[in-house]
């Protein structure tokens, strides 16, 4: 399997469409998961998946280390996702200040307060988690997702985000601190 994977990578890099297809089929779901966790939006995640593979296709010859295509691909995907949410943030900031967005999300949560029989606690928690992740800065969110969900090491995350390792570590720490501030009370309650 891994042997044939390495062959597929080499062939795709040489321009073989069938091999490229194999790589798309193999990595699409993983890239989608990563993209969704960074963008928090299904349609955005689909756009990121598409952009990621297009960029891979366009720049494949720049890829040298065959064993770590996954890492390289996730690096492309992370940066596509960051571009997308940064662009969106700028766009939104022209219309409303950022903390109003935050407040709007909180208002939405409380105004939609569900009757207990219709919505489980965990569904409400899911929304709170999503909202808290949504209030991280793009870099915090990306760094946190790569560390927390993808299990990537500090060095890899730093390289992906173009940061020094110390800065990457700090970014993750800030993200955890913010999440803690918003969510710990619910985690304690649900234990």
């Amino acid at each position, binding site marked *: 399997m891994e042997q044939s994977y390495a062959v597929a990578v080499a*062939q795709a890099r*040489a*321009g*073989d*469409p*069938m091999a*490229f*297809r194999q790589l*798309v*089929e*193999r*990595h*699409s*779901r993983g890239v*989608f*998961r990563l993209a*969704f*966790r960074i963008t928090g939006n*299904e349609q955005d995640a689909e756009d990121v*998946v*598409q952009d990621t*593979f*297009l960029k891979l*296709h*366009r720049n494949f010859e720049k890829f040298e280390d065959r064993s770590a295509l996954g890492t390289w691909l996730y690096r492309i995907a992370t940066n596509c996702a960051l571009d997308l949410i940064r662009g969106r943030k700028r766009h939104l900031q022209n219309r409303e200040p950022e903390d109003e967005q935050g407040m709007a999300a909180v208002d939405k949560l409380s105004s939609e307060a569900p009757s207990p029989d219709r919505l489980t606690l*965990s569904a409400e*928690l*899911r929304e709170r*988690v*999503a909202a*808290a*992740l949504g209030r991280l800065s793009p870099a915090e969110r990306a760094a946190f997702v790569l*560390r*927390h*969900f993808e299990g990537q090491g*500090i060095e890899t995350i730093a390289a992906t985000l173009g940061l020094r390792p110390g800065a990457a*570590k700090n970014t*993750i*720490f800030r993200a*955890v*601190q913010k*999440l*803690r501030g918003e*969510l*710990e009370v*619910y*985690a*304690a309650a*649900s*234990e």
Partner: protein
Amino acid sequence: MQRHLSEEQLVELYYGDLAEGREATAHLDSCKACGDDYRQLRAMLEMVKEAPVPERGPEYGREVYVRLLPMLEENAAEEVEHSWSVLDAWKNFVRGWSWTGATAMAALLVVAFMAGRMLPRGGSPPTGGDLGKNQAPIQQSVLLVALGDHLDRSELVLLEMQHAQAIPEGRVNSADISTQQQYAEDLIADNRLYRTVAAQEGDASTAGVLEDLERILMEIANSPSKLDEKELESLQKRIEDKGILFKVRVIGSAVRDKEQSSLPAISGGGASRSASGRGKL
């Protein structure tokens, strides 16, 4: 470790990044304040880990590829341009001659098909099931890549139709399917060629699926480009009832299997395959 752990150290400990991990763990066991702090942090992080991601089924990768295909071809178009002089000549010849509107891949198929016809054939008449099996490997491979691409493009149109939605426009909901129609129209001429070749090669099952596909493509192409909710639903239902998407996928993967197995017959493998696979200009 005598001193209490900082929040930063607790986070590092959780992720296994803390250099003095063992001492820290020992401290957590002996210090209730730090232990509680750590357990709270861990519970929060574990809760975040449960955040769900929308499901994507096993066919997802395939769908992504099919949606990418037109863009990959644009990407590749410039690269191949140089290496296509002979085939371009063929394409122009064939196009100018009679196959107006057919895509380059369909023209390429005609080239392959005619070349195959002109080559001495293996004596026994073609039997059902094996598309183009009597043709020389290079022609067969070109044909299979072309057919595979055609099926991918058809799948794209069918998927796009399946995902089409009626959105509010004025007082009614309506769906604009003009893009899908454009695609469908482009595919009909190609489809007719492949169907003819499949029938002539005695591959009744492929010819049958292509015939069903052609009907659906015609129906998409000939529908009004703005459909109301009901019309859209009934068109989608007719597509679904025929199970055409599934059939297209089945012969698509059969074609790709054959394509793979015909690969070693081509000298140099990658180069000629990639040229033929990216031939749509």
